C-alpha cells in the first residue's frame, strides 16, 4: 500500500539525498570553475587598492541605484520584498531551523510562526505580481526567456506548498509536507544550472567590479 507517509518518507530520504548531491556538486563545480579561471593579469600600474573597494562594492550594490529605482520602482521594491520575505520564511521558521540544526549543527532562535505566515503570504502575492509584470510589461517580456519562467516557478512552488502545508490546506498532512519538501528538492536540483546561481556568484561579480574600479582609482 503506497500511502502519503510512504511518499513523505521517500522525499525526506532518498529524494533529499539525490537533491543534496546535485545541489552541492553543481554549486561547488561552478564556483570553482569561476574562481580557478581567474581574470587576465592586469599589467598596468595600480592607482588604488583592490581589497577595500572590492569589499565595499559587495555591500553597496545591495542598495538600489537611484537611476534604476526611478525608472522601475515596482521591479526594485518587489524584488526587495520577495527576497527578504523568502529569507525570513527560509531562515526564521522553526521547522526550517530544526532542519539546519540537524544538517549543519547551527541553530538560532526563530520568530513566531504566524508572523512567518504573514510574511510568506506577502511574498507569494509579490511573486505573482512580479510574474504578472514580467508578462505584461513589453520590455520585460521581450527580455524574458524560458529560464526566467523556470526559475520563477521553482522559487514560487516551495513558497506556495509551504503556505499550503502550514495551513494544512491539502489533506492528509504527510502529502502536503511531502509536496513541499519535493518542491524544495526541485529547486535544489535546478539551482546550479540556472541563474539561481546568482545567490553565490553575486559576491564574486561585485568583488571583481569593485576591485577593478579600485585598481583604476575610480569610484565603483
Amino acid at each position, binding site marked *: *500500500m503506497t*500511502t*502519503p*507517509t*510512504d511518499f*513523505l*518518507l521517500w522525499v*525526506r*530520504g532518498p529524494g*533529499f*539525498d539525490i537533491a*543534496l*548531491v546535485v545541489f*552541492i*556538486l553543481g*554549486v*561547488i*563545480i*561552478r*564556483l*570553482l*570553475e569561476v*574562481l*580557478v*579561471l581567474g581574470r587576465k593579469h592586469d599589467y598596468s600600474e595600480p592607482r588604488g587598492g583592490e581589497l577595500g573597494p572590492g569589499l565595499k562594492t559587495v555591500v553597496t550594490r545591495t542598495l538600489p541605484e537611484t537611476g534604476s529605482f526611478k525608472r522601475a520602482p515596482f521591479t526594485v521594491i518587489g524584488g526587495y520584498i520577495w527576497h527578504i520575505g523568502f529569507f525570513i520564511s527560509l531562515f526564521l521558521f*522553526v*521547522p*526550517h531551523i*530544526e*532542519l539546519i540544526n*540537524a*544538517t*549543519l*549543527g547551527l541553530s538560532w*532562535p*526563530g*520568530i*513566531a*510562526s*504566524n*508572523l512567518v505566515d504573514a510574511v510568506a503570504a506577502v511574498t507569494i502575492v509579490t511573486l505573482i505580481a512580479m510574474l504578472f509584470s514580467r508578462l505584461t510589461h513589453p520590455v520585460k517580456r521581450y527580455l524574458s526567456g524560458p529560464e526566467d519562467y523556470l526559475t520563477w516557478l521553482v522559487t514560487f512552488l516551495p513558497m506556495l506548498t509551504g503556505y499550503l502545508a502550514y495551513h*494544512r490546506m491539502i*489533506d*492528509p*498532512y*504527510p502529502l502536503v*509536507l511531502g509536496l513541499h519538501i519535493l518542491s524544495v528538492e526541485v529547486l535544489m536540483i535546478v539551482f546550479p544550472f540556472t541563474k539561481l546561481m546568482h545567490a553565490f556568484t553575486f559576491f564574486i561579480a561585485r568583488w571583481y567590479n569593485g576591485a577593478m574600479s579600485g585598481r583604476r582609482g575610480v569610484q565603483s
Partner: protein
Amino acid sequence: MADHMKRFRQTLGESLRERGVSRRGFLKYCTATASMMALPPTMVPAVAAALEKAKRPSVIWLSFQECTGCTESITRSHSPSLENLIFDHISLDYHHTLQVASGDAAEAAREAAMHENEGKYLVVVDGSIPLGNPGFSTIAGISNLQMMEETVAGAAAVIAVGSCAAFGGLPQANPNPTGAASVSDIVHDKPVVNVSGCPPIPTVITGVLAHFLTFGSLPELDALGRPMVFYGQSIHDRCYRRPFYDKGLFAETFDDEGARKGWCLYRLGCKGPMAYNACATTKWNQGVSWPVESGHGCLGCSEPDFWDAGGFYNALSIPDSDIIRNAGIVTAAGVALGAAAGALNRSTRAKAAAKHETVTIDDLDRKS
C-alpha cells in the same frame, strides 16, 4: 444457554435497564455518542431510539500478529463505564484472549457464530497477517490468513483494530521478516474500517460499534479507511499546546524551562502535525491525560509506517539520512571535480593563447 439466548434476543435498551442503567445515564451516553460522531443535537433522540431497539450483533475478534495491547486498551476502558456495558451488549462470540473456552471448543464457538449470523456478524481483527510463511503465526493449527479469509467470507464488515491490522504496524516495520500485511491488503470484497493507533483509544472502538448499532452502517471514512469523526483532525490542530507553536515557543529538552512551562514539543520530535487521531480531545485513562499533556511528543502511532518514519525524537522536518556525512563526501567530490574542470579551462585558455598569432600592420598590408 437459555440465559445466553435470552440475552441474545434482548435489545440494548432492555439489557441496559436490566443492568440498572438509568434512562438519564443512557441518554447521556447517547448525547456523548452523537457529539463524538459529529451529529447535531437534534439527532440524539434518533440515536437513543436506534440504540434502544438495537439487537446485539455477533462479533468475532481475531488476534493475529499483535501484542494484545489493543485488547488491553479495551479492557482498561474506565470500568464500569457505559462503553464497557455497550461492549457487554455486543455478543463477543470469539476472542481467544478473553474467552474461557480454548482449543476445539473455542473454534467451535467461532464457527457456530459464523453459521448462526451468516452475513450479519462483525469481524474485528487486531494484528497483522503474515504472508511470508503460513507457519509464522497459527491459531489451533490454522494459519492467520486462512482463518481470516474463512471468517470474513460471511461477515457484514471488518473492523481492523490497531495499527498492525490497519496498516501492518510494527510486524511490517523494515525489514518485515514475516511479510506482514494489513487487513485491507487482503480483504477487498467487504467494507473494512481501520481503527488505527498503537493502541487505539477505547472510546473510538466502541464509537465505531455504536455507529454500526445506530445506523446499521459503517461511519464515513477518510482516505486511509479511518472513521472521519475520530480521525478527521490532526493532533496538532486540536493540541492545547498549539498556541506555543504559533508563537514560536518550544521546549528544547525534556526538562528545560520551556518543558516546565508546557511549550510546544515539535523540536523534541512530536509527530502531532502528521498524526490524525482523537487523543487531544478524548484523552486517555478516563480523560485524565494524553501523551502530549504528560510532556512527551506524539509518536504518530495512528499513521502508516509510524515505526519507520524517522526517529521518535527527531523533528518532523529532519531528513532521515546522515546528511553531514553525505554532504562531506559530496563536497570533497565537488572540490575535486571543480578543480579538475578549472584546470581544464585554464589549459584550454593557455592553448588558445599559444596558438594566437600576432599580426602586424605590415602583415595586413602584404595580404591586401
